[in-house]
């Protein structure tokens, strides 16, 4: 692995940690414990369901927010504050910078998710007293959530390479929402005609498909996730993230820094 990319990645990780982003874990832990205790006491027969729904949704949302908020500043902040000058005057290629930033943030999110996963399983243990075999599928759901993070991070990075933080946040968030309803958008496109159909279909395929990556409900109902779907989703996330990164690399390569 390219040494400079690794160094940039670990520095990005260090920045996130020192920026106290991991403190969100405290909020998450409180949320999970509160929910688990509440649900355990009321005992409404669907404790496991609630814990998994709530836990995984929180992991997903917290992570997306972090990914967007840190991601949008990854490049633009360095350009604004001109910390980039002393980096690029070294034998660091522009693309290495982008890729390093990506892995740094992605790594941060993976670590964050890991700790959150512990929290979810702890809460699960509390309400069900012991683990079921089906709890293994929760790991798959978490894996898919991490794949979502890869896509969102790459997209936020792409926007950061040319847009101001505020606009980037809006675009990234909008893309996340639309991506959640991507399948509906494709269905929609199928019902239109002519030019609208072309445009709508194009947009529908361009938008990241988060609906396929959201298996929270099926996992909560102890449904297995087919192996080939795991493979396809992994490939899709990697390909989509790479696409966004290529865009970021291209834009950044051609940019005049102020």
């Amino acid at each position, binding site marked *: 692995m390219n040494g400079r990319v690794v160094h940039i990645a670990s520095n990005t990780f260090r920045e996130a940690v020192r920026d106290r982003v991991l403190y969100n874990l405290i909020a998450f832990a409180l949320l999970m414990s509160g929910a688990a205790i509440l649900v355990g006491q009321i005992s409404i027969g669907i404790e496991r369901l609630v814990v998994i729904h709530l836990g995984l949704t929180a992991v997903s949302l917290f992570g997306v927010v972090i990914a967007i908020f840190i991601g949008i500043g990854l490049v633009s902040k360095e350009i604004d504050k001109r910390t980039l000058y002393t980096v690029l005057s070294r034998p660091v*290629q*522009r*693309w290495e910078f982008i890729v390093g930033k990506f892995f740094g943030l992605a790594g941060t999110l993976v670590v964050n998710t890991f700790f959150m996963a512990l929290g979810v399983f702890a809460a699960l243990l509390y309400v069900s007293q012991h683990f079921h075999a089906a709890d293994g599928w929760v790991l798959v759901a978490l894996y898919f959530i991490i794949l979502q993070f890869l896509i969102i991070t790459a997209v936020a990075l792409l926007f950061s390479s040319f847009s101001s933080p505020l606009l980037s946040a809006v675009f990234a968030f909008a893309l996340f929402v639309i991506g959640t*309803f991507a*399948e*509906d958008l*494709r*269905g*929609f496109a*199928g*019902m239109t005609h002519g030019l609208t159909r072309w445009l709508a279909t194009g947009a529908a*395929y361009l938008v990241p*498909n988060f*609906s*396929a990556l*959201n*298996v929270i*409900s*099926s996992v*909560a*109902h102890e449904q297995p996730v*087919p192996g*080939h*779907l795991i493979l*396809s*989703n992994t*490939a*899709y996330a990697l*390909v*989509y993230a*790479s*696409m966004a990164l*290529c*865009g970021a*690399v*291209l834009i950044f*390569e*051609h940019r005049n820094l102020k």
Partner: protein
Amino acid sequence: MKPSSRITITASILLVSCLAGSVLLLRSIDRQRTGATLEEVLYISSPKLLKHLSLGYDGLLADIYWTRAVQYFGDHLDKGAEHYDLLGPLLEITTTLDPHLLVAYEYGTNFLAANGGQPRRAIELSEFGIRNNPNEWHLYYGLGFVYCMNLKDYAKASESFLRGSKVPDAHPFLKVLAAQMAERGGDIQTARLLWTTTFQTTKDRDIRGNAVAHLRALQVDEDVPILERLVAQYRDKTGHLPQSFSDLEAANLMRGTPVDPAGHTYKLLPDGRVEVRVPDELPFIQKGTPPGYVAPIPKFKPID
């Protein structure tokens, strides 16, 4: 001292291939997951919970669910499915999120009751719609329709049409229908009236297509007994069964060759029965089919 062309080219090629790859993978994933969304979606327990979760954006969510319902229905129609199990829940969710989405109620009464075989559910849906939209005569019409056509409860049908006729701007036919229910609920004429009214008063393509299919079936159900009576008359007159319709023409009993709504001439069988040439093209018919004929799942084309 220009941007590196090597990087530009590499990144561009990579970007385009990733784009292509993502589209292909997406299609593959779609195929693996058909129907999964809906099942998943309905796991959000109750419609009320969903309404709360929608944080006030229930209108948009209702539209999305409506789109899914239409797709679901279209999918199943294409495949000639027997059951439309998820249609009920989808319509329920849609109308809970947006009680004023009138077309959802129309769908319910037209498809839930008949094709879906769930008239009771359709009635609940209609009543819910009426509670939320008391001045929409359409809804009373739909309710009465279900009572008449599916449950054969002509008293209730009449009552529904009467309620509807009292609504301002109601279609004048509602009074007529109310009266006719009482006298001739089970007639073909009544049925024809109802389907024609449905056809004329809706804008939805699926519903119109369905209405047309039923009207054609009614035509057949009317034609066949008439034709068979003519055949009987011929037999009475001549003592033997006619060979073809031209015999009937020759005997001055009819003019021209009878054609069914699908455009084919009727078949005259040696035993005097009249049949439709291609029964599969005429869903919903009850007469004019060969013995032992099992109708396939009714299919119709949406009409503008």
